[in-house]
């Protein structure tokens, strides 16, 4: 490892970003007041509530969502040996969307919606894995199974939407699918926090061995890697990260695809350095974008719209660079 401290430095990047994000908002609060609220100092009750109960949970959720999507995206790109995939490859978003839609039909409390979305996301990937496993657990088979499950679950989601009350439930489902972090409260952070702690610490410890999964199956087997078991575990952990993020934020595009490439451009492809860096860049990026989303206008800007606006052009730049480096697509 040539630049280990540097990669870990990137992992610390979100800290100052989070602190800056806490200072910014439509409600004018001075940095001193933010500090006082955080440290339990003397400050108006409404300011304390805003900082601790509105801004902090939202900024925290943004950081976790960003780190989760970036790490899962980086890992999936390696496991599926395809630089164009991201964490949502295996049907997690359609599963989560379906779960959320069902929750809206049955019971509209935000906590239930989150739980259903999370379960739906996991179930979507489980279905994909089951199909893939039945046909030999090869990488390509899994990807095809993912496409099948994704399109099937989207169709089921269509049926649920069609059955939903067009004046009440249906718009609620549509708004949820648009995504964003505008409704995040402290209690929502608990399940996301637990899932992220498990998934992120797993990958931060396992990070070097992800390299081995980028090898052809036989090559990895020859290096003593039990490919099927390892891939299953890694995809499972990735799913935990993505499903927990999606269940809170809805669909946030591009982060899982873009951030790993950006991090690679800085620290190189070695997962030992890439994963800490991707986690740091992902967390910082989503915190920044979400801060823009909640402060740029009086109205909330959907987070997915911002990531899309930024993502497409930035990805083009990174991808051209990637192609040039590899000397072409094949």
């Amino acid at each position, binding site marked *: 490892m040539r630049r280990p401290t540097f990669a870990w430095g990137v992992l610390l990047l979100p800290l100052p970003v989070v602190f800056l994000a806490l200072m910014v908002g439509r409600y004018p609060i001075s940095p001193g007041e933010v500090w006082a609220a955080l440290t339990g100092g003397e400050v108006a009750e409404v300011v304390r*509530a805003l900082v601790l109960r*509105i801004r902090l949970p939202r900024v925290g959720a943004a950081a976790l969502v960003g780190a989760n999507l970036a790490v899962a995206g980086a890992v999936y790109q390696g496991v599926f040996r395809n630089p164009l995939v991201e964490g949502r490859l295996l049907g997690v978003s359609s599963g989560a969307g379906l779960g959320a839609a069902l929750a809206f039909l049955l019971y509209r409390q935000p906590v239930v919606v989150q739980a259903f979305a999370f379960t739906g996301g996991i179930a979507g990937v489980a279905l994909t894995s089951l199909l893939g496993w039945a046909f030999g657990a090869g990488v390509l088979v899994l990807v095809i199974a993912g496409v099948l499950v994704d399109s099937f679950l989207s169709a089921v989601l269509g049926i649920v939407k069609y059955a939903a009350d067009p004046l009440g439930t249906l718009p609620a489902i*549509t708004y949820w699918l648009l995504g964003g972090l*505008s409704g995040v409260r402290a209690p929502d952070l608990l399940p996301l926090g637990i899932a992220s702690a498990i998934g992120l610490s797993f990958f931060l410890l396992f990070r070097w061995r992800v390299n081995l999964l980028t090898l052809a199956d036989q090559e990895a087997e020859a290096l003593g890697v039990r490919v099927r078991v390892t891939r299953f575990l890694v995809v499972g952990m990735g799913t935990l990260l993505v499903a927990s993020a999606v269940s809170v934020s809805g669909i946030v595009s591009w982060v899982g695809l873009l951030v790993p490439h950006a991090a690679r451009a800085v620290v190189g492809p070695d997962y030992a350095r890439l994963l800490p860096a991707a986690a740091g860049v992902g967390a910082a990026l989503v915190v920044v974008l979400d801060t823009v989303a909640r402060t740029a206008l009086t109205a909330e800007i959907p987070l997915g719209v911002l990531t899309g606006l930024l993502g497409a052009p930035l990805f083009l730049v990174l991808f051209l660079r990637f192609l040039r480096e590899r000397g072409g697509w094949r």
Partner: protein
Amino acid sequence: MMRLFLAVLFLAAPVFGQPVVDQAGREVVLPRAPQRVVSLHGGASWIVYALGAGDLLVGAYFASLPSLPLAADALGGLDPRYRDKELPVKPTVEALVALRPDVVLASSVVHGESLASLLGEVRIPTVLYYPETLPGIEEAILLTGKLLGREERATALVGRFRDIVARVSAGTEKRTPRPRVYFAAYTAQNVYAGDVIQNVLIELAGGIPLGKALAPRPGLFWQRVDPEGILVWDPEVILVPVYSRASPTTFFTDPIWQGVTAVRTKRVYRFPEFFAAWDIPGPEVVLGLLWLAETLHPGSTGLDLVSEVVRFYEEFYGAKLAHNDVAALFGR
């Protein structure tokens, strides 16, 4: 639930402090009479004005602002600062908190429990509205009356509201033939579908809502109709709302519509507006109903439209309109 329970326990005060059930079935408690109100629901904003509480509004979403100079003047008379108060439909939470409202009136569909629980974190009570039917509008008026401590006025308004609805339905109930009515939505070939309030108005006014049998598009209130379907329906009356991209001219010039009875007999109408469009859920819907009944079956209600409009804005909003000005709006 726990928080709500505690709120009931500790914040109960003699007059306010009683739980009010909103239109999402939630119990909301206001510790005292609100002095600063934010409304994020277009219908609710007009109800607040109708209750004479426009000065309490510190922020409001208006689905649309009046485009008629007469209406804009009238609103300016009601509330000179209404333009400064305008909010987007989904403002950020902090923008809301910065207004320091005592209560936020929001849509159960657009904002829902998600916004309510977030505002709960900073102890701002949220009331959710769902006035998508005529009884729903009455309920919303009574609910807002309770919230603002103006129940008497709310009851009086609902009385008038019911009065007009009753007069209209009594007048049109037995009227035949009932014309086939096509209520265009955002474009000429989009028709309001299912049980939306536009179709309810047509039925009460003695017409046959052609779009009622169609299922609306997911997430929307309308459905697209193909040209052949339009010819099969052969609408006798076509209604075009003010917010539509289509106008009556569209129907008179587009060749598809030339074979349709409504176009041949020149029965294509702009659905009127004043503060808001009269077909959008809110107090003025009752005028939309009256106008439509008099348009489909002239004389059926026994009411004079212009006088009723003048009376409505005076009773509901305290706006004094000149009879001649209103008559001019209807080309009389």
